[in-house]
């Protein structure tokens, strides 16, 4: 398809997803074989298999796609990507769908709404310290989003502490100001593929 032909009309949902995925995702050439859906370790628990999502994308059913828990259940194992007979960059597309769900606010309606919160909490720590911080992450995330679970996780956290596998205070890198400047600039540039 030529660039001019696309510009002449509003992009389809499929074209949007492709445009927001880095490199050549090749999502347009999915033959709906189901190799991805069969390979996915969390596939049995997804509301839609990756293949199912791609059929929905092709049909332009934006809300169904962006509300699905499927992208959030992706554990980035890359099985689908290496097995896809059409060499579609499926894992990258899953990341794209997560970002689109956040941008468009749909994820709050998904059954996996905790997942983006986990990612965000994780990132908060990285942005303020330059390193991740497991104790802070676990506490902040569980207390904020899964208070019930937090209690259940206490023995595990204590175990981590007792074995010297978790810090009580975060490590901060020296160049944190530099890192923050870089991230700030990156966010401003944003939108890039």
């Amino acid at each position, binding site marked *: 398809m030529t660039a001019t032909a696309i510009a002449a009309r509003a992009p389809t949902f499929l074209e949007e997803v492709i445009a927001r995925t880095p490199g050549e995702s090749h999502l347009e050439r999915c033959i709906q074989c189901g190799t991805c859906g069969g390979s996915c370790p969390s596939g049995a628990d997804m509301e839609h298999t990756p293949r199912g999502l791609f059929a929905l994308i092709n049909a332009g059913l934006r809300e169904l796609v962006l509300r699905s828990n499927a992208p959030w259940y992706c554990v980035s194992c890359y099985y689908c990507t290496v097995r896809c007979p059409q060499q579609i960059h499926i894992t990258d597309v899953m990341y794209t769908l997560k970002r689109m769900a956040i941008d468009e606010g749909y994820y709050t309606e998904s059954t*996996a709404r905790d997942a983006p919160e986990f990612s965000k909490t994780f990132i908060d720590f990285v942005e303020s310290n330059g390193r991740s911080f497991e104790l802070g992450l676990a506490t902040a995330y569980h207390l904020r989003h899964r208070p019930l679970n937090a209690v259940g996780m206490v023995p595990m956290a204590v175990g981590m502490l007792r074995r010297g596998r978790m810090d009580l205070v975060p490590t901060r890198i020296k*160049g944190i100001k*530099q890192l923050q400047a*870089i991230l700030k600039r990156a*966010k401003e540039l944003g939108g890039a*593929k």
Partner: protein
Amino acid sequence: MRYGYYPGCSLERSAAAYHQSAMAVVQTLGIDLVEIDDWNCCGATEYFSINLLPAYALVARNLALAQDQGISNQLVAPCSACFLNLTKTDRYMMESSKLAADVNEALAAGGLHYTPGTVRVRHLLEVIVNDVGYDAVAARVSKPLTGLRVAAYYGCLIVRPGYGGIFDDPEHPTALDKLMRVLGAEVVDFPLRAQCCGGHMTQISQEVAFEMIRRLLKNAADYEADVIVTVCPMCQLNLDAYQPNVNQFFGTDYTIPVLYFTQLMGLAFGASPIELGIGKEFVDARPALDKIGVALPLTEAPRRPERPKEALPMPRMEEE
């Protein structure tokens, strides 16, 4: 042999044992791993879900530091997730000049610049297997792990999708098996060797995550492994720290210790368990290690059932 070293956040604390044992082992092998000064988190699997360009910039800062600090043009990452993020960023910056330009514009805000392709990122296992080689490793073995039944567990990101080049088969890798055999261990078949440990799923849906972990533990138990050996801190954490939770959830009673490959290498090289950070695991490794300590002849391994004489021949396979 001198390399830049990017330990990654886990190796600072939750996987300190990996760091400790890796250091001990590379010293024996004559490898110099020099830590990149002031590296930052690679973003794990999280940052790419939220915001793409900052995610690349975050990783690229490390590549820029590695490039500028001039330790070596090779950077070793022991964590599979870090390995993936570093190779992915380098590869995508190489493939897309637009991405490279944007990332570099962001880096410029911190006075940095990274030229894609200048730093070659390697996983620690790959360096040991390819640069040092099995023979050199074999030469250092003083206390072979005879009788220890090991399930060699690769997980995902060291073999898939191969942004830094294909190092082992993405479906049925064998490098770690060979390494363990060189150490004298008995490597059991482990069909789920490259399946996912669940990654961050423990934080998102415990039922889903526990099931993924259970599958792996069951598979290792089915083949009567004494120990699962890993190449990634995330895999170790999921299989080890959550093993009690998994048992509780499913009513199972798995007690399979999960050690880093560097810890077993260290033991075979004659280092003391303490030196190698052994003892920090949730599932006690002592019963397994007793087995090699006392060097008793193995309780007979389950023998393959004899092939009846009507049996049809098996297809011929290339030697591993």
